[in-house]
């Protein structure tokens, strides 16, 4: 059981084009059965925030290769276990997607 989680999600480096040009989104993730993790968050973002071309942002379980993810201003890979890139990780806080042209970014922070 996960309580509602307040998260600030930011897109940049070109990723914002897929979200109507809006860079910062303050969202509240609703209550749900499983704890919130990155995979769930991505699914939620795809359903609720993504405006167009999902294949340019999400690929399978994770973000498309080339998109950098920051969690609380730190590299996502710092939290990744050895089992792979797509992972169930308890969401610490705000997620920020960081990227640059050609490498769009997306990050999240706790709100």
């Amino acid at each position: 059981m996960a309580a509602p989680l307040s998260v600030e999600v930011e897109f940049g480096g070109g990723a914002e084009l897929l979200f109507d040009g809006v860079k910062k989104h303050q969202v509240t993730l609703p209550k749900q059965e499983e704890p919130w993790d990155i995979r769930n968050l991505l699914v939620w973002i795809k359903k609720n925030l993504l405006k167009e071309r999902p294949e340019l942002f999400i690929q399978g379980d994770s973000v498309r290769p080339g998109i950098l993810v920051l969690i609380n201003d730190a590299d996502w890979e710092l939290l990744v276990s050895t089992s792979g890139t797509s992972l169930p990780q308890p969401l610490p806080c705000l997620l920020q997607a960081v990227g640059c042209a050609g490498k769009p970014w997306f990050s999240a922070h706790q709100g």
Partner: protein
Amino acid sequence: MCQVGEDYGEPATEEPPPAPRPGREQKCVKCKEGRPVVVIRAGDAFCRDCFKAFYVHKFRAMLGKNRLIFPGEKVLLAWSGGPSSSSMVWQVLEGLSQDSAKRLRFVPGVIYIDEGAACGQSAEDRAKTLAEVQLVLQTFGLPWHLVTLEEVFGLPPAVLCCSIPEPAGAEGAYKAAVDSFLRQQHVLRAQDGSSPPQAQGQPCQPHIQKPLGPLSPAGSPAAAQTEALSRLFHSVKTLTAKEELLQTLRTHLILHVARAHDYSKVMTGESCTRLAVKLMTNLALGRGAFLAWDTGFSDERHGDVVVVRPMRDHTLKEVAFYNRLFAVPSVFTPAIDTKAPEKASIHRLMEAFLLQLQTQFPSTVSTVYRTSEKLAKAPRDSRAAGPRCLLCKCMLDVDDADSATAFGAQTASHLSPMQPPTALAEAGTPPAPCCVPGLCRAQGCCGGTCGRESPRVCVIEQLCYGCRVNMKDLSPGPAGGPGVPDP
């Protein structure tokens, strides 16, 4: 073999040896104290300060190792607004403000090219972007040149002529230049007492360069030229050729500005990742012979102006993190291939391929980069000044009389069925990409025989294989050509 997602039935054997599992208490691998913020390469976690030191060191080492930029030289920084070039400009700015021992000693200027017309941006979007760009340019505080891609129509044919490259300096030339520069500084300082050394020479006042071509009084390009440029790009059939055309026009424009203002070097901000993609893409485009120039640190094919790539050791991830952590200003502008599907062009396909491979095999990009470092530029014959490709200025090292090669076959097929003379040919203006009017005449290529062959064939004969392949995707266009306005 290297395909991501392929199932061999034994996935365990494919995984790289497990790195120690990063826990919450992980420390920076360098200083062992700080909280890590970014993972570089495979598994090296750096804290913020160590990352900054690492990043800056790479930049300075790249410049210092190659010893190509002499003290006091004027260097033009090609800034696209994107992260890599913004980072490069930022590094130069920081380098200029160091204490004198480590200070960068060249004189920079910045150029920004507004490519909105080629990318199909509306006038309002372009104006908005330009406003942001000007803000950032003022932040930089360097002399800047703001040009629009439409000015390419105003370039003289001389821009395609290759000036004789200066003979490479003797071994000790660089050291001697640095020594004499330092001695000058000592003398100046002794004379002036406490005033700062006149190393930079020119005041750091930004100014707008006088426009090269015909511009409307408001300073924005004439609508006819914008129209012409967008028609030109629309007439290109494939995205691949569009990207190559854009690259060519951009390069020539930058070089022209550099020559007009006495810049002897141009710095472009291509990162490691971009160059790896470029290397593979160029192989697919038929430019394998010129990889060393297209992806190396220095590119001397234009003779008097040398293109230098100081960011070639930085991956896009490092650039992105640096820009984010240290608030480097940049302006995002949609490019010609933004939001294009994966298979839209060879460039996109290669980028998707490499980035995908990189997720599973983190040394992919660096391996390709190391390969590009090993490419040598030895000319085929010793110093034979052979003909050069008209558009990309690379040495035509193929014997086009030999029809057994792909190059030769292309030549033969263009010569036999003569292109029907269009009204365009009669006008004497070359069609399609040659937005340089009077090209044939300027080059003097056909002597008097141009009358019987179309100018397009004349031009194609002077191109390298890669450029010829691109030309195939450029349609001749209606009479009057795709927008070559009367000069």
